[in-house]
Every structure is written in structure tokens, then in C-alpha cells.
């Protein structure tokens, strides 16, 4: 009997102030993390969300850097010519070997969490969270797209079927770069193939993904602020009833699943898609009691529903 396959998780390692030698050694050391089932992506750190920061702390800016990292609760691995025992953070000596760096990375990324769940797959939507305000270039392999600063439009930058982008959206391994200038955006837009509503991109990706696009931790009941802009007919029909119910009032996931006969997995996917697109209103403080409008569902309504391929008798059966 074979052991269950262990999932590969993904981590992003930010780096700053490293010279070519240390950068190269860091990249090689990071690649060795695959032995720990961690796919590590090394990026120049521009204050984006990363799991670990590797930085040279010998220059004059290092104190500021460490303060910023501390404010973000970001673990730091220092590269320094100073005496290591005098550091208040983990460090490796200037000139450290690939092996030294790897061991420190492993210790920082893995040792504190043996479950392997700490570094959740870096999907497109996890990467995007907290990036509103600047246009973002996202790529994973051949798939590349630009999300505008307000998260309204998704521009595909490769001549691949839209379907490929939607399937890839929920997969791990995305790299995000924030674009700081109009010139950088213009340069990307030169490769634009087509543009889609960001809501369409999110919700269609959510419909194809077996997992919610993002993990939500709030326990507040949630409501839909508005119906998402999705190409008509591209959402699962089973989602219509829970979405319609969420348009009326806030719901706890379990309560909504029970009332609509929808699986909790589907409810989680709907709520996550709504959260990704700013359509989730979780400001409610408590679940509103189920009231119902008093509008009885007549047999005639049931027959109309059936005529359109719907059966509400046990939730929305299609």
C-alpha cells in the first residue's frame, strides 16, 4: 500500500541587498527545499507579501529594513560580516555556502511547522491579496496576465485560450510583480491579447477550482453586495440559489448550505469568489433569523422551475 502523496506547498522568499554570489547561492539553496516539499520562489523584495526575507544587513539601510520586516511580522535571515552570535535574528556569515543557507532556510520555513500546511500554495488570488492600489503583473510558466490597480480588469498577455488562464488561476506557483510606473504598464499592454472583467475571471476560476480561491477566516455571516459580472451561463446552475439567498440577507456558511441544499464546499467556493471580488459583505454581527417572505412556493412555481430544468425540492437540483 502506498503512502498518501504529500502535497507540494509554495513559499516566496524575498531578498534584498545580496550580491550576485549570495543571490546565486540563495537560489540554489531554495531549489533544494523541494526535498522538503516546498517550492520556493526567490523574488527581489519590494515590500510585497513574502514568507521569508533574506537580506544583507551590513549597509546603512539595514536597520530600516529590519524595522519594516518586524512591523510585517516577517521572519528575516541575515547575511552579514558581523559576528553571528551578536545578532538578534537568525543569520549566516558573509560567504556562507549553499549548504549553510539551505539549512537556515529549512529551519526557518519548515522546522516551526511540521504539518506542511503553513506555506499554503501561492495561488494567483493569494498573491493578489493586499496588492490593491497598483497594477500587478502575474505569471506562472507561459500564463501571464495583468490585473489593474482597482482589480476591475484582467488583461491576458499570452495568446492562450481563456480557459487555460482560468484553470491555472487556482494552481500554485504564481509570481507577482507590482508595476510602479505607467511605462511599465504600457510595456505589458503591448502584449495584450484580450481583456476580461476581473469578476468574470475570478468567478469562472472559482467555478473550475475544487478548492476555494482563498481561505476565509471570518466567522461573521456574509451577504452578497451585488451579482457578479460573469459571462451569462458560465456559473454552475447549482450556485444560483445560494447566491440568490445571499443577495437577500447575511448567512453563516452552514446555515446557507442547509437552507439551500448546497454542499459546504460549494458555499465556501462562492464566498471565497465573492471575497476576492469585493462582493462579500461580512459586516454583519450575527446571523439574521430565517424569516421567509411568506410567499409560498406553489405547485405552479415548481412546474415552471421544472420547465426550466430546476428542482428546488431538495435545494437546487439540476
Amino acid at each position, binding site marked *: 500500500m502506498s503512502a498518501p502523496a504529500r502535497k507540494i506547498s509554495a513559499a516566496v522568499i524575498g531578498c534584498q541587498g545580496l550580491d550576485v554570489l549570495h543571490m546565486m547561492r540563495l537560489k540554489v539553496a531554495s531549489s533544494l527545499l523541494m526535498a522538503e516539499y516546498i517550492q520556493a520562489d526567490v523574488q527581489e523584495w519590494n515590500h510585497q507579501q513574502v514568507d521569508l526575507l533574506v537580506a544583507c544587513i551590513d549597509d546603512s539601510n539595514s536597520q530600516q529594513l529590519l524595522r519594516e520586516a518586524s512591523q510585517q511580522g516577517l521572519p528575516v535571515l541575515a547575511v552579514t560580516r558581523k559576528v553571528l552570535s551578536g545578532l538578534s535574528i537568525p543569520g549566516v556569515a558573509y560567504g556562507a555556502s549553499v549548504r549553510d543557507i539551505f539549512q537556515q532556510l529549512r529551519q526557518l520555513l519548515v522546522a516551526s511547522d511540521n504539518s506542511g500546511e503553513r506555506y499554503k500554495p501561492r495561488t494567483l488570488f493569494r498573491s493578489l491579496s493586499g496588492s490593491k492600489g497598483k497594477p500587478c503583473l502575474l505569471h506562472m510558466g507561459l500564463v501571464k496576465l495583468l490585473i489593474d490597480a482597482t482589480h*476591475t480588469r484582467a488583461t491576458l498577455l499570452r495568446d492562450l485560450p481563456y480557459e487555460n488562464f482560468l484553470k491555472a488561476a487556482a494552481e500554485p506557483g504564481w509570481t507577482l510583480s507590482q508595476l510602479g510606473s505607467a511605462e511599465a504598464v504600457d510595456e505589458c499592454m503591448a502584449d495584450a491579447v484580450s481583456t476580461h*472583467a476581473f*469578476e468574470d475571471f475570478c468567478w469562472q476560476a472559482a467555478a473550475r477550482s475544487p478548492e476555494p480561491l482563498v481561505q476565509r477566516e471570518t466567522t461573521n455571516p456574509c451577504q*452578497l*453586495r*451585488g*451579482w457578479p*459580472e*460573469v*459571462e*451569462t*451561463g458560465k456559473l454552475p*446552475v447549482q450556485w*444560483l*440559489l445560494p*447566491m*440568490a*439567498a445571499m*443577495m*437577500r*440577507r447575511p448567512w453563516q456558511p452552514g446555515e446557507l448550505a442547509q*437552507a*439551500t441544499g448546497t454542499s459546504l464546499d460549494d458555499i465556501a467556493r462562492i464566498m471565497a469568489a465573492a471575497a476576492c471580488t469585493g462582493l462579500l459583505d461580512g459586516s454583519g454581527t450575527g446571523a439574521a433569523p*430565517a*424569516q*421567509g*417572505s411568506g*410567499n*409560498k*412556493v*406553489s405547485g*405552479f*412555481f415548481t*412546474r*415552471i*422551475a*421544472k*420547465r*426550466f*430544468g*430546476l428542482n*428546488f425540492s431538495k435545494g*437546487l437540483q439540476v
Partner: protein
Amino acid sequence: MATKLVFVGEMGAGKTTAIRSISDMEPISTEMPISDEAALDAFEDKSHTTVALDYSSIELGDGELLHVYGVPGQAYLDFMWPIVAEGAIGVIVLVSALNPRALPSTLTLLERFRALAPDACFAVGVTCQDREPDFSFSDFRNALAGEGHRLPVMWVDARETSQVDFLIKALLSCRYAEAIA
């Protein structure tokens, strides 16, 4: 008993086309050639318009019918609205993205028909997406919500049966959600 499904919208919104795409029979329509030059210019691929009602029906089995009406949204024809709205299970407001008054027109129709058919469910279909790529769907939807109209709003190609069908599915889901929420 609620036995009607109503499509309402201004000229060129796609009511007749939408009804035709889901009907079991060829709709009875009161279409006439457009005589207004300005309107002909505005709707360049449209030579006729509905001057009164569209009517069709959908068979539910055992001889039962869902009556489907298309009603012009122009205010001067509003004397027809109460007659049609009475007993409506659902009202779908269709609006063309080409209509420069899409928002006020939709708001007016929603408010008037909500008053006429308080038990009906509502949905909005926005047509002509391919001809007006600059139409801001989210602004339109958010503005409707801001006025208290929290309801399904969708792009719809009235020529596509599957899209009109999906819009009706959303409407029916809202109707059922009312009963359970």
C-alpha cells in the same frame, strides 16, 4: 395565481428577441416599421419596433401555460403596465448598454413595476454588450444596489436561448430564495 413572466424595457432592449428565443410558439407581436428617423439612426440594425405588446406562452405540461409578455418601457405606454403586471411571478427588465439613459430608465421601470407587482421577483438583463464595450457594468449594478435594488444583473444576448434561459433560472432562484431567506 402568478402565471405570467414579464419582459419590460425601452425600444431596442431586446424584449421581442428574448421572448422569441425561449418560447414554444412564435410570439404574437405588434411590430411596426420604425418611422422616426432619429430612432432609425440610433438602432441601425432595427427596422421594426413593438408598438404594443408581445405575447407568447411556454407549456408546462398537462395544458398549463406560463404566459410571457413583452411590454414597451416608454412612459406613454404605461397604461398597459398594470394590466400586464397583475399576477406576474417575475419581471425581467431589459436594458441596452447603448442606451445613454440606461440607469435612470432601469430605475424607473424597477420602481414602477415593483409597485405594480409587489409579489414578483425581479432581474435585470443588459444587452448589446458587444456594441458598447465601455459600458461599466459594475457601476450600473452598484448604482442599482445603491437605490435598494439588490437583484441579479447580467449581461444577456437576447438572441441566445441559453443566456435568456439562465437569466430566468436566476430569477426563479431569487423567487425561491425569498421563501427560504
